[in-house]
């Protein structure tokens, strides 16, 4: 049976524990930590989820077993220092002046040298110059000189091991082991419900005296807060702060290319005890420390910006109506006897996208956008992202609205062409004309008049078929037309007919705009060089309604941005210790690697002209032999001869 002291002192056990920590750490990097528990259940299934949870794999680095191993390693390393330090000190002090000539001669670097004097005065002087410490001993039959340098190498061991202890202790001071202990004792527990702050039980609150924590605060502009949220496993704790913190302003600065350059918050801190108030500016890489708590800029999001919207119906000739909403607010919407909710999730004043223009890709700020979900009565939702300003694509401007059925999908875009006034108005006028019975009748009549077709000898029949094309197009778009053609037309004529139909639809649109331009010749909307392109794009947009998932298009007419800034607040009393330990570590490694410990002895038997000089080191590098020879030269010995030359 191994005693505990033996286990503690066993290097092999310590190394295996260290390897275990390494493997656990790797698991921690592969298995994404601190995700919501639902996503783990989806990934692993209930069975494995439970087993992994028992092992605390979702929060490896704060698992009890992980911390226990670290504690063991600290104990083991301390024990190692305790055991070995006296020996090291003895070694550093000891010169071993009683060594025998025979043992010198058996050393790897041992030479026969001619000595000039009867004492070691000259050697002592020269060795001291070379950085050696020297002791001499006179015996009845011989003189012994013992010298050494680089004995601080031994301090390397001491410092590196001490460093590991100091760093680990510092780290443990900042880990929330106190909370874990209190949790085990049943005093505290994690809150996993979504409760307002006032209803959170005392057992999930941590008071100001809590020595170490890492918690978050999210403030909207103008908001004030005096607690922070400490997320843990599948829940959270509430940390009391010694001050109140208010967000005055949050600012994002941008590069000329549109990418964000800095995130800055202006905050006001009010000390709870003294009532003292102070204003600060903090940003990424420039944290603020108050009362031992350091506040970092860590996050930002929308804080409930107000949005002024125009609601357009893409499937009728109705004009828009206005709606005002806020991010995180839900609006109700009735459409053709159906009830929908509009859930506004985000607003961004800046959007940097990679756009291609004339074959060159570049990043551009395309202006504000907002994200909302449109949910029907049965709970199904489609997500939209609409941009306020038109974007230039292949030389022309479009209002982009992305839609997707789930967050995993990519957005599919509805591209509404901008009119010659760079607004969405022109398209909406076009749409209204297209759905207006009178206008479309006039347009169709024009087509019938100008195209005395051979195919349709009967004018009424021609008109009817135009009406049918129109009806199919407004209900199902181009895909509806394609369906009819594939069903009714022989295969060899399909392409020709399709081209004719597309041309007819185009003419309907073109006539509508001509009619409008005749009525309002000075309108700003339809003054294009390339009118055909606009008409085609506008018809495409009407047709694309079929995939868009809704007949409603929301235009952002105005907004007032309100931002929220996220802070991380940390109290880490262990930090100075970790830094101190780091300094020890660097010193220790330097000592261990770059200080060469070397000892040398010279023995001269009484009444002999020859003596023995021997070198010993615990790091026998490739250059060591050269070093020994140089030292002998430095001592002024002229001829030397190596013992044991076979050995080397």
């Amino acid at each position, binding site marked *: 049976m191994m005693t505990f002291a033996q286990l503690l002192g066993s290097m092999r056990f310590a190394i295996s524990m260290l390897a275990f920590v390494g493997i656990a750490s790797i698991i921690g990097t592969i298995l994404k930590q601190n995700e919501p528990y639902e996503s783990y259940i989806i990934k692993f299934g209930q069975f494995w989820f439970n087993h992994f949870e028992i092992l605390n794999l979702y929060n490896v680095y704060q698992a009890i077993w992980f911390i226990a191993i670290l504690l063991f390693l600290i104990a083991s390393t301390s024990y190692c220092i305790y055991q070995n330090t006296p020996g090291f000190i003895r070694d550093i002090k000891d010169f071993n002046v009683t060594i025998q000539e025979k043992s010198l001669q058996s050393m790897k670097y041992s030479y026969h040298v001619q000595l000039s004097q009867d004492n070691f005065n000259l050697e002592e002087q020269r060795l001291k110059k070379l950085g050696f410490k020297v002791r001499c001993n006179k015996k009845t039959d011989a003189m012994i000189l013992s010298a050494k340098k680089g004995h601080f190498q031994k301090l390397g061991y001491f410092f590196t091991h001490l460093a590991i202890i100091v760093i680990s202790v510092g780290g443990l001071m900042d880990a929330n082991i106190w909370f874990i202990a209190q949790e085990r004792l049943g005093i505290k527990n994690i809150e996993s419900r979504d409760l307002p702050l006032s209803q959170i039980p005392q057992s999930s609150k941590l008071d100001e005296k809590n020595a170490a924590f890492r918690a978050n605060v999210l403030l909207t502009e103008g908001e004030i807060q005096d607690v922070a949220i400490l997320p843990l496993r599948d829940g959270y704790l509430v940390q009391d702060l010694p001050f109140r913190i208010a967000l005055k302003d949050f600012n994002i600065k941008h590069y000329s290319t549109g990418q964000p350059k*800095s995130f800055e918050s202006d905050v006001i801190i009010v000390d709870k005890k003294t009532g003292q108030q102070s204003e600060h500016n903090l940003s990424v890489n420039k944290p603020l420390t108050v009362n031992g708590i350091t506040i970092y800029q860590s996050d930002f999001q929308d804080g409930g910006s107000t949005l002024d919207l125009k609601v357009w119906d893409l499937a009728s000739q109705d004009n828009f109506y206005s709606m005002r909403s806020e991010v995180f607010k839900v609006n109700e919407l009735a459409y053709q006897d159906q009830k929908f909710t509009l859930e506004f999730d985000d607003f961004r004043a800046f959007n940097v996208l990679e756009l291609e223009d004339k074959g060159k890709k570049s990043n551009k700020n395309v202006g504000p956008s907002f994200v909302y979900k449109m949910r029907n009565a049965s709970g199904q939702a489609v997500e939209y992202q609409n941009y306020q300003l038109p974007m230039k694509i292949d030389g022309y401007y479009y209002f982009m609205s992305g839609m997707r059925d789930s967050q995993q999908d990519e957005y599919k875009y509805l591209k509404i062409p901008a009119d010659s006034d760079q607004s969405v108005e022109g398209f909406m006028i076009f749409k209204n004309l297209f759905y207006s019975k009178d206008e479309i009748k006039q347009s169709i009549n024009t087509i019938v008049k100008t195209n005395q077709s051979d195919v349709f000898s009967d004018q009424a029949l021609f008109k009817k078929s135009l009406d049918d094309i129109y009806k199919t197009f407004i209900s199902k778009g181009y895909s509806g037309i394609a369906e009819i053609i594939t069903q009714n037309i022989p295969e060899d004529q399909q392409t020709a007919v399709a081209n004719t139909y597309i041309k007819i639809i185009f003419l309907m649109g073109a006539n509508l705009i001509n009619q409008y331009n005749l009525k309002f010749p000075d309108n700003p909307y339809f003054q294009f060089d390339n009118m055909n392109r606009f008409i085609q794009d506008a018809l495409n947009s009407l047709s694309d309604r079929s995939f868009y998932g809704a007949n409603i298009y929301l235009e952002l007419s105005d907004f007032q941005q309100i931002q929220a800034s996220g802070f991380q607040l940390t109290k*880490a009393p262990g930090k100075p210790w970790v830094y101190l330990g780091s300094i020890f570590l660097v010193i220790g490694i330097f000592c261990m690697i770059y200080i060469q410990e070397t000892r040398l002895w010279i023995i001269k038997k009484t009444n002999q002209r020859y003596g023995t000089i021997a070198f010993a080191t615990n790091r026998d590098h490739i250059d060591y032999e050269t070093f020994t020879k140089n030292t002998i030269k430095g001592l002024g010995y002229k001829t030397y001869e190596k013992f044991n030359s076979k050995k080397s």
Partner: protein
Amino acid sequence: MRNLIQKNPNIIFSLLLIILGSYALFNFHNHMDIYEVGILCGSVIGFSWLGSFWPTFKKFFIAILLLTAASIFLYQGSLQIAEQNFFLKYFISSQSSVMWMSALFPLALIIYWIHIFSQGVFYGQLASRLSWIATAMGMAGLLIRWYESYLISPDIGYIPVSNLYEVFILFCLITALIYLYYEEKMNTKKLGGFVLIIINVAVAFLLWYHFAKDASEIKPLVPALQSYWMKIHVPANFIGYGAFAMAAMISVAYLLVDNGKFVKLLPDKTLLDDLTYKSISVGFIFFTIATILGAVWAAEAWGGYWSWDPKETWALIVWLNYAAWLHLRLIKGLRGSVLAWWSVVGLIITTFCFIGVNLFLSGLHSYGEL
């Protein structure tokens, strides 16, 4: 004058560095914070020190200085000139300079192997020269890129060690410099054939990254990277990575000799063993310092000196790996093929930390993403 330089090369070199440093300080102190002034002074001292025991480094430094100065002179403060000026377009704009590096390293590798098989001194010297020129072109390329980033816009300018493209160039350069130092010191040019393999792997990646992903475009820094810490954390880390990579390649040579291959063509096993050790020691010290600096920076930017972010965790694993390696060698006196194999495996772990984490794991270090 010539006499003066020959007698006191170190003093002259240090003086040159001091003049350069002062020039930078007086002209650009408005753009520097106190820490950056510290880094500038530290660089002057550091490069003087490097030059004092490594004569070729002095020549190298002056060469990149001239290349960079010529490029800045030709640019005349406008990026557009790069398209029109012959020298900028084909030699010393940062892009072309890096391309020269990418062309010369493969060439040097081939000639190193000719040297190994032919044992001809001429080929060894040629390969070595080519490696020096490749390194100089690459280093000048980075410095010119630094200047170019300011030409785009003064508020965009940054030291080019911020994304995967830039650090891959840095990796090639630092690995090459560490190798070239030991090549000179150990007086053998045979190992270039091994160390340059890993450099050329990096070059291949760089070229793919450049042409397939358009990675060479200069993009402004995200706020998290705007810190003087980047100027020391990243280079220190890459001295670590470079040294570990070189150690692994020399271990490959060791294992070949150990198995009776190329015995007559390659240096002695003891030399290879010792060089592996030296390389790992240098790497270990710098990797330790870099990780500590990273922790201090993390404390400033992310709010905690240690967040168990995948990159941090893998850095710890790399550190533990080489700590164990050194422990076994220094304390237990282990030598030979076990350590050589270990150092090769170490490169796999290091590579995962360097690039695998960016590819497969997500975390706070996400600016290095592919």
